[in-house]
C-alpha cells in the first residue's frame, strides 16, 4: 500500500518528497491556511468525512493517554475501551473518506501522515487531557453532542455513512451513560471534586460552540441529505447538559466568546504535540509492516 501523497497531489505536507513548506503558526483568528483538504472545494463529502473522523481520532488519542494512569483499574479499562471505540469510528470514517477521495491514500495515511493544518477536528478534542475531572467533563460534552449527531447521521441518505453512524451510535450511548455518571458523582461529590468539575466546564465552554457551527461544507452535505444540520441539535444538547449539570450541583457556564477554526485547520498549539507522539512510529518507519 505505501504511505505518502500520490504523485499527482500537491507536493507538500507529510510524506511528500518536496522540501517542507514553511507554514506560519496560525494565530487563533488568523487567516485560514489553505491545504488541499480545506474548504468545500470540489469534494465536500471528503471534507465532511475528515471532520467526523478526525474528531474521533484525536479524542481517542487523548483518552489513550490515560492508559495505565486511570484513577482505579476499572476506570483505566473503561477509558481505554472508549478510546478504542473512538478509534474504531475514526477508522471506518477515514476509510470511507479515503475511498471518496480516490487518490490512493488509505485510512492509515489519513490518520498518520497529515499535519496539524490538514486536520479537521474541533479544538475541543485536542486540548490536553488535564486532570480526570477535565477529561470527564470534555467527554460528557462531546458524548452528549455525539449521541444526538450520530442518531441523526444514521438517517443519512449515504448508505455506508448511515451504517457507520448506526453502529457508532450504540457505543456512544454507552459512552454518554458512563461520562454522565461520573459528572454526577464528581460534581455532587466532595468540595474538591466539585471545584475541579466546575473549573473544567468553565474552561471547556468556549470550545463547545464549534460543535454546532455550520459552513459551506456542512450545508452542502445537508442539502444532499448526507449530513446533519448540527445547529438544529443545540437546543436538545443544552437541555441535556443543563439537566445533568443541575443534578450534579454544577453551574452551566455563560455563553460568551466561542473559539473555532479547527474545521479549517486552525488548531491550538497542543495538536502538534499530540500528532508528534501519535505519528512518531509511522514517520520513523515509513511503510513498516506489523
Amino acid at each position: 500500500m505505501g504511505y505518502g501523497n500520490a504523485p499527482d497531489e500537491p507536493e507538500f505536507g507529510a510524506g511528500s518528497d518536496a522540501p517542507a513548506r514553511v507554514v506560519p503558526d496560525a494565530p487563533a483568528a488568523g487567516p485560514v491556511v489553505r491545504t488541499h483538504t480545506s474548504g468545500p472545494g470540489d469534494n465536500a463529502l471528503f471534507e465532511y468525512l475528515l471532520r467526523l473522523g478526525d474528531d474521533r481520532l484525536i479524542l481517542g488519542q487523548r483518552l489513550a493517554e490515560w492508559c495505565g494512569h486511570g484513577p482505579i483499574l476499572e476506570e483505566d479499562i473503561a477509558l481505554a475501551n472508549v478510546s478504542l471505540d473512538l478509534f474504531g469510528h475514526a477508522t471506518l470514517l477515514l476509510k470511507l473518506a479515503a475511498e471518496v477521495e480516490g487518490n490512493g491514500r488509505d485510512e492509515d495515511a489519513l490518520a498518520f501522515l497529515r499535519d496539524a493544518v490538514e486536520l479537521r477536528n474541533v479544538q475541543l478534542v485536542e486540548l490536553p487531557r488535564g486532570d480526570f475531572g477535565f477529561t470527564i467533563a470534555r467527554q460528557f460534552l462531546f458524548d452528549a453532542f455525539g449521541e444526538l449527531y450520530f442518531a441523526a447521521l444514521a438517517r443519512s441518505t449515504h448508505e455506508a455513512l448511515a451504517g457507520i453512524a448506526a453502529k457508532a451510535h450504540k457505543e456512544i450511548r454507552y459512552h454518554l451513560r458512563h461520562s454522565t455518571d461520573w459528572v454526577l458523582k464528581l460534581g455532587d461529590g466532595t468540595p474538591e471534586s466539585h471545584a475541579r468539575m466546575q473549573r473544567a466546564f468553565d474552561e471547556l465552554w468556549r470550545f463547545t460552540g464549534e460543535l454546532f457551527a455550520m459552513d459551506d461544507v456542512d450545508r452542502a452535505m445537508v442539502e444532499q441529505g448526507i449530513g446533519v444540520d448540527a445547529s438544529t441539535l443545540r437546543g436538545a444538547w443544552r437541555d441535556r447538559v443543563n439537566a445533568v449539570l443541575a443534578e450534579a450541583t454544577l453551574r452551566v457556564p455563560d455563553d460568551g466568546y466561542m473559539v473555532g477554526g479547527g474545521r479549517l485547520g486552525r488548531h491550538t498549539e497542543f495538536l502538534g504535540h499530540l500528532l508528534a507522539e501519535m505519528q512518531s512510529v509511522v514517520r520513523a518507519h515509513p511503510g513498516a509492516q506489523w
Partner: protein
Amino acid sequence: MTDTQWPLWEVFTQEGQGAPHEHAGSVHAVDAEQALQNARDVYARRGKVVSLWVVPSIAISASTPEDVGPFFDPGNDKPYRHPQFYKVPRGVRVY
C-alpha cells in the same frame, strides 16, 4: 490499616437467553450503577454477554474451609444418595 478500596461487587454474566448467570469475577465500585458499568467494561466487552448481575460481595454468605467436612463429605458410603441405580424407562429421552 484502613481499607481505601471502594466496595467490592461480584459479577455474574449470562451468555445467552436461558443460560445461567455465571460468576465472572469482581469489580470495585461505589454504587450499583458504577458496578454495572465496570462489570460491562471488564467482563462483558468481548464475548457474547446478554445480561449482567452485580451483587455486593458483603451480601454473599459463604461456607468456610472448616465446613468442607460436615458440608460436603460426599457420602460415598451412602450409595442410595446417588441416582445411578435407576433405569431410565424406554421412551424417555436422555439429555
